[in-house]
């Protein structure tokens, strides 16, 4: 590994400063909402946070001048470090709101938001200010669409720097130019935001909610649903609305969020056949159906619900929410832990662990890798049954056709194994603290897969170390592990060899 120099660090912190400045400016949106809602205490909380965040961003961005291009490993470090610092600074207004027992708890929710997880330690959510509630959902939108991508889309001048930062966030390029790709993602997201907010807002209006509340809550729910985050404006999650239409609309948000943006780009460009041919959509269809059968069968066996209609409605919603990595719930966590039985929970754990598509807002292993591993197994079986002299190849279709290579399989297997390792690590820590196996595994997969469902382990009284483990799991899981590992290795290497 190359020895990092002071110049390299200046380059890294300069770019991280840009991300922080943008984050600070984003705080002005909830600040304006607070002014409109006359929540003066919250206005001050956001003003303090914005001044500090923009100030630190200024110092880093303008104080440390960037010299030279950003390399591949610097790109990874910039992304991982940006996310970590974004967590620290996004947590400032949350902590100032007085709804958190400690700054660590505020950081937990902040990372949960940015990483689009949805696990929460907030106290008394039902009395939270509008501005603060909006901030919780906005950080999900920023994290889900990739705050680094936003910087690339509108602030990064050099395409080389942009490419390194873009891939560091675990994204694939939709267009030949990553800046164009980033702009496409943001344009589509803003259009979806407008359409989603209006449609759900009208639905809530017809469901008996007051107009202002309807559109406020619909914008929050869209940001959390489309970005597969899972925060909700009320403590009861989606249970609060007691509405089938709301459930159907939020399912549509979650499905949009879990599909690959590259596939959506093809559909937008009038090539809908891509949906049918793509390896990811095929894999996803299979895994969703398989895990749904498992969940529904598990619920039927234990008789969790009196009718099949209720079993299907509750089971399917939780399954799609878990598989997409959202975490919206139409049942209580405690109820799920006590009444759903081991088979249904096992099905949900598998679904959460697999996740949605690559280049989407979902976390976890992702359908592309699962598809590649399946294809590889098929190839190996074919090879075993063919004559020794035969050349057996396997082709996959993802936007275009290509032959499966050892490199592709290796990368897919490595990331899959890293995720499984991360899931096991979190589960092990949970077990050491005395939580049951199913509960520990469920919570760990939920955190590392950026899902946000809980059976009750995530609570403000849980051990501090377990909170830190879940924060790391959310962070690493969102960035597909590699960027976080690279960041630690980079700084370790810098310190070990001494400054130059």
């Amino acid at each position, binding site marked *: 590994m190359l020895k990092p120099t002071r110049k390299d660090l200046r380059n890294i912190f300069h770019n991280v400063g840009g991300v922080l400045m943008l984050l600070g400016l984003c705080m002005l949106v909830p600040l304006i909402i607070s002014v409109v809602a006359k929540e003066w205490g919250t206005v*001050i909380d956001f003003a303090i946070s914005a001044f500090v965040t923009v100030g630190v961003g200024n110092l880093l961005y303008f104080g440390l001048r960037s010299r030279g291009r950003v390399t591949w490993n610097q790109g990874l470090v910039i992304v991982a470090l940006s996310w970590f610092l974004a967590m620290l600074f996004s947590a400032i207004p949350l902590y100032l709101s007085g709804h958190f027992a400690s700054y660590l708890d505020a950081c937990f929710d902040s990372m949960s938001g940015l990483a689009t997880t949805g696990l929460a330690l907030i106290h008394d959510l039902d009395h939270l200010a509008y501005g603060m509630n909006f901030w919780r959902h906005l950080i999900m939108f920023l994290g889900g669409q990739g705050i680094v991508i936003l910087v690339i889309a509108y602030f990064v001048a050099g395409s080389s720097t942009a490419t390194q930062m873009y891939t560091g966030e675990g994204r694939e390029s939709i267009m030949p130019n990553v800046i164009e790709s980033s702009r496409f993602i943001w344009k589509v997201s803003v259009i979806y935001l407008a359409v989603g907010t209006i449609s759900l807002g009208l639905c809530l209006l017809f469901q008996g909610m007051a107009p202002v509340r309807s559109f406020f809550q619909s914008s929050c729910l869209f940001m959390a649903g489309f970005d597969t985050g899972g925060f909700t404006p009320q403590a009861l999650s989606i249970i609060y609305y007691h509405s089938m239409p709301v459930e159907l609309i939020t399912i549509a948000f979650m499905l949009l969020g879990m599909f690959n943006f590259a596939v959506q780009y093809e559909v937008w460009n009038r090539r809908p056949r891509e949906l049918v041919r793509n390896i990811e959509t095929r894999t996803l269809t299979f895994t969703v159906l398989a895990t749904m059968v498992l969940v529904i069968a598990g619920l039927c066996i234990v008789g969790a619900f009196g009718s099949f209609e209720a079993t299907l409605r509750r089971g399917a919603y939780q399954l799609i929410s878990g598989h997409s990595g959202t975490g919206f719930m139409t049942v209580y966590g405690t109820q799920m832990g006590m009444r759903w039985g081991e088979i249904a929970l096992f099905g949900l754990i598998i679904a959460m662990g697999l996740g949605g598509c690559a280049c989407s807002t979902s976390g976890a292993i992702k359908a592309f890798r699962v598809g590649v591993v399946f294809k590889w197994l098929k190839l190996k079986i074919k090879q075993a049954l063919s004559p020794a002299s035969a050349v057996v190849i396997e082709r996959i279709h993802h936007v275009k056709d290509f032959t499966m290579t050892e490199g592709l399989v290796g990368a897919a297997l490595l990331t899959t194994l890293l995720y499984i390792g991360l899931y096991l690590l979190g589960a092990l820590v949970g077990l050491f603290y005395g939580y049951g196996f199913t509960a520990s595994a469920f919570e760990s997969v939920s955190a590392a897969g950026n899902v946000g469902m809980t059976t009750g382990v995530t609570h403000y009284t849980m051990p501090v170390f377990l909170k830190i483990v879940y924060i790391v799991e959310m962070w690493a899981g969102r960035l597909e592990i590699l960027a976080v590992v690279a960041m630690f290795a980079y700084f370790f290497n810098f310190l070990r060899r001494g400054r130059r």
Partner: protein
Amino acid sequence: MKKIILLLMLAVAVMALFTVPATARGEGTEVTVSQLLEDWEEYDGREVILCGEVVGDVMARGEYAWITVNDDTYSRQALHEEGTLDGQNSGIGVWLPTGEAEKIGRLGRYGSMGDFVEVRGIFRADDEQHGGDFDIQGQSLTILEKGRSVDTSPDGWEYFALGAALLFLLVSLTPILKRRALEMQRAKALLAREED
């Protein structure tokens, strides 16, 4: 006279019966949301009484309306008024006649403590009418304590922190101003050289 006294006593007794909480009359069991979640089998289909704060919205749907009743710590002591942090909210949806829901004057939100109510109804751990919902099919609602506004105005130290943060922001602009000054100097020098 004896008859009048007897009638008066009877009237007082009847009035007392209506002022005594329903629990004392033995109609339904007073429960908490935690009890319903943990011992749902015991209470499923039984008449229960839940006391708590009405939060969020009243969502009227025809002859009935949905409300949410929280019975957590914050339903009795507002967090912003020296309340203690005691975890997440604990609430349940109540489906009750719109006429009953119309009694609600104030809802619990930021800066507001909602009406503290007593709800009587049948608890359903798997409400078939609402696709397997976990709720109370409310029959009546009594306001025990009217809601009120909560003081959320900023503390003195927050203004001080705001001033300090603003000062920090201005200080952080120094590198930009320095760079601008340097660029201006260079431009002037270049201009002067060109003029020479």
